[in-house]
């Protein structure tokens, strides 16, 4: 049905963004109220829509730009999956960020772009047409850049530059692909898959490749992932946002859209592009983990683990089997929860104990029990320890791989499990078992920072423990697939 709801959903973060920019630096209360208010409102809206959408309803709002440039906002199950994640984590990350920055400088700018970034993500999720997807994709790039550069010291400026240097060619490729496609099929709406008969297979393959390159940059597909570790120079809330909510997720989500709404599973198999994509994803999974193993900065290691983990989603999409699809979609949520927990904790370690490198974590378990516990849960979840979140998605991915007749994927999942264990367990070991280094001390008596981490950690356990319940992410992903989405 056509309503203003999607627009409203977008506005809940767009308006705060717009206003925040013009707030005075020291009007903290108002700014925080705006941000949190927007987040709460958005969550309320989402919950309001959840039930209707669960029954197969969809809300639409359309804005025609120049003919052929249709901006279509559409709330369907898939969009809601992504939005509910981003909204929830936005809320938590905002709380975290408020506590993290305290009264540092340039907060209006930061939070302005922060919520703008979330708005872009929301729009991305809501996009019902290729072109609107691209528009929000770009908006995302632009709104993230100032966040990466926020500190404005040498590393973060370099990081921002690298980010741009990767993102813009990526979006150029994306635009190139979109226009190439639409020049033959006309404007593409996700609701009605385009008729690709007008293009010969070679061209279609090229287009597919361009699409994947375009969204792959954001999804951190190897070899397009270089910006992700560099972006670690950004402050912790930003990293959390980049890695769990906005950017990489946008990329992964884009892959899903491209695979199922633009090409469709049949075409993908017919063109024989699914397997190469799966291979790329698998390689990314392995490579990311291997590189993570070589890092001794906490955030760097986490960054590479993101590179590896996000490709699970890509893999799920590439395998073109319902179960794998469920696995991929649910990992969209699960990875978000786990990874944001880890980044929250990394930020706390940095803020409260001044620990940036892994060897600095020795014995912190006793000093900062809450943080360390949350970190451990997140890490174990990443490894795929049952019954935590990561296990569920991995299990479904594995089943999907077998269903799709690609058992070699199991080997990839296994290898990644081992590598995950190999680079996370030592950290836990240091946290809990090694003696505290002399002079090192830290505490986590900072509720603003710790509570969000605890919440997400609890969620990591919760979504795994209650996976089978219909309201869990898994339940929702299953609903999406059973509603006829995907393969």
């Amino acid at each position, binding site marked *: 049905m056509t309503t203003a709801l999607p627009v409203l959903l977008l506005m809940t973060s767009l308006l705060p963004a717009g206003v925040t920019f013009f707030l005075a630096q020291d009007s903290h209360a108002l700014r925080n109220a705006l941000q949190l208010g927007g987040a709460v409102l958005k969550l309320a809206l989402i919950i309001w829509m959840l039930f209707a959408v669960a029954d197969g309803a969809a809300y639409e709002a359309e804005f025609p*730009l120049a003919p052929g440039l249709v901006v279509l906002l559409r709330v369907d199950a898939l969009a809601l999956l992504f939005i509910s994640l981003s909204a929830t984590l936005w809320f938590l990350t905002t709380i975290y960020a408020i506590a993290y920055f305290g009264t540092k400088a340039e907060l209006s700018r930061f939070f302005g772009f922060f919520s703008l970034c979330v708005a872009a993500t929301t729009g991305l999720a809501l996009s019902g047409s290729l072109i609107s997807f691209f528009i929000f994709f770009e*908006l995302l790039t632009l709104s993230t850049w100032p966040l990466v550069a926020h500190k*404005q010291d040498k590393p973060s400026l370099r990081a921002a530059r690298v980010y741009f240097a990767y993102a813009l060619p990526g979006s150029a490729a994306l*635009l*190139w692909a979109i226009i190439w496609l639409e020049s033959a099929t006309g404007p593409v709406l996700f609701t009605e898959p385009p008729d690709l008969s007008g293009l010969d297979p070679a061209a279609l393959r090229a287009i597919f490749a361009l699409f994947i390159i375009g969204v792959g940059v954001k999804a951190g597909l190897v070899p397009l992932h270089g910006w992700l570790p560099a972006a670690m120079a950004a402050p912790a809330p930003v990293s959390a946002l980049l890695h769990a909510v906005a950017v990489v997720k946008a990329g992964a989500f884009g892959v899903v859209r491209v695979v199922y709404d633009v090409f469709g599973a049949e075409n993908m198999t017919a063109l024989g592009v699914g397997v190469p994509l799966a291979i790329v994803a698998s390689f990314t999974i392995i490579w990311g983990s291997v590189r993570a193993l070589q890092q001794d900065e906490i955030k760097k290691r986490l960054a590479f683990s993101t590179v590896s983990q996000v490709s699970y989603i890509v893999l799920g999409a590439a395998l073109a089997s319902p179960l794998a699809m469920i696995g991929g979609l649910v990992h969209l949520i699960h990875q978000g929860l786990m990874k944001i927990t880890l980044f929250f904790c990394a930020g706390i370690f940095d803020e409260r104990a001044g620990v940036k490198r892994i060897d600095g974590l020795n014995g912190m378990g006793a000093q900062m029990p809450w943080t360390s516990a949350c970190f451990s849960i997140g890490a174990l979840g990443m490894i795929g320890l049952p019954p935590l979140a990561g296990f569920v998605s991995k299990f479904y991915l594995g089943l999907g791989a077998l269903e799709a007749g690609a058992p070699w994927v199991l080997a990839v999942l296994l290898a990644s499990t081992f590598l995950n264990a190999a680079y996370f367990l030592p950290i836990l070991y240091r946290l809990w078992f090694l003696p505290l280094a002399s002079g090192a001390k830290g505490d986590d008596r900072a509720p603003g920072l710790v509570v969000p981490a605890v919440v997400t950690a609890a969620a990591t356990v919760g979504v795994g423990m209650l996976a089978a319940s219909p309201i869990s992410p898994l339940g929702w992903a299953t609903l999406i697939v059973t509603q006829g989405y995907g393969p």
Partner: protein
Amino acid sequence: MTALVAGLTLPLLAAFAAIALPMRARVPAALLGAGLTLAASLWLAVVVWQTGPVTLSLGGWQPPIGIALRADGLGAALGVMTALVMTAVALAARHEMAASVAGPRAGFGFWPLMLLLWATMNAAFVSRDLFNLYVVLELITLSAVALVAISGKAEAIAAALRYLLFALAGSLLYLAGVVLTYAAHGTLDISLLAARMAAPSDALALGLMTAGLLVKTALFPFHVWLPHAHSAAPAPASALLSALVPKASLLILLRLWFEAMPDLAAPAALLTLASLGAMAVIWGGLLALAQARLKLIVAYSTVAQLGYIFLVFPLAGGDGGAQVWAAGAWTGAIFQTLSHGLAKAAMFLVAGIYLVAMGSDRLSDLRGMARALPMTGFAFALASITLMGLPPSGGFTAKYLLMTAAFASGQWAWALVLAAGGLLAAAYLYRPLAAIFARESAVAPRAIPRSWQAIPLGLAVLSVALGLLSSVPFEFLQIGRPDPAAEGL
């Protein structure tokens, strides 16, 4: 009809007023004239929107004897863009060209020149007579050159002279073409020429006119005069020069190829035009990347941005069957013309503000300006988005339409140029942006009133809004559109 005439006469009257009236009254008179002309242009647009193209034969004389004026969607749209830029520049000039800031001579000379330029631009947009267009072009050139030289500095005068050198050569080439045309057909009215019997001398005539117009449009490799001229002029003047002046000759070029002599469109010629455009995109981008002064960067980006427009020649009509629109490429080119005009004016006005505030436009001196003058930083960023062709700006719409045409007609190479140009733009605009938004908190020695900062911001917002609300302009540009625009040359 009345609107059409008003658009031509009001600025002239205002120009006279700006010369004749006593000191105190000049600027107000100029501003009043600007406001009225803006109103007239908008009014004309509304009329065209409602009733279609407006035609007027001066003194009731019909062509070929008389001169016909015709405001179609294209002309009216450019008129509105010009009016917006002109008004903004006038408002900015109120601060910037005040005698106290720019010296008595510039303070006096700027207003009449600006208004004269405006009047002649409007004339160029609606005139249908090739010789009349020659006169108009010449007047545009003269006022533009004068604007370049207005500061009286040695480098400015040299730049102005060089500009004049190129421009006059161009005018003479154009004139030669006109003469040949008349000799062959006994008429210079575009509509009549479209219906003429082709003559052997037409080829030479078209070649001469095209070459002449290329110089004035500063297409690579004839752009060399532009950067120095634009950067030597005072910022408001540069805004006019960069955003508007080349558009007049460009428009004539379009009219020439699409309306007067579409039958002469030789594939090789179209290809050459487009390749020159492509080279302009790359060359301008590279040189912008090599500059250290903001105004030079912006000026070279003009060279690059104008290059896009020339892709229209081979791409027009290449819209394929799948699109919901016709004349996508053609409209795209016009969108580029419009959005570039707005964005570029905004950028030069920002540069002007920085010049006034810091006394320099070297990037090294502009670090942290966004902190001192946030609105200007915001304006520059928005304008950059348009020039990079990022959504949802007007530049994006333009690129999208052109690119689609490129693919639909199977000429991918041009799409590549568009993409590469976008990336280059990102690269060369990154440096000023990075400098402006650097952490150093620059303290502007001279305070800039918010009302002044708001002017470029307004223009930049418009350039983005052009993409955000692109459906109306799109429809508007189709009014009185020449058929070849849809069918291709």
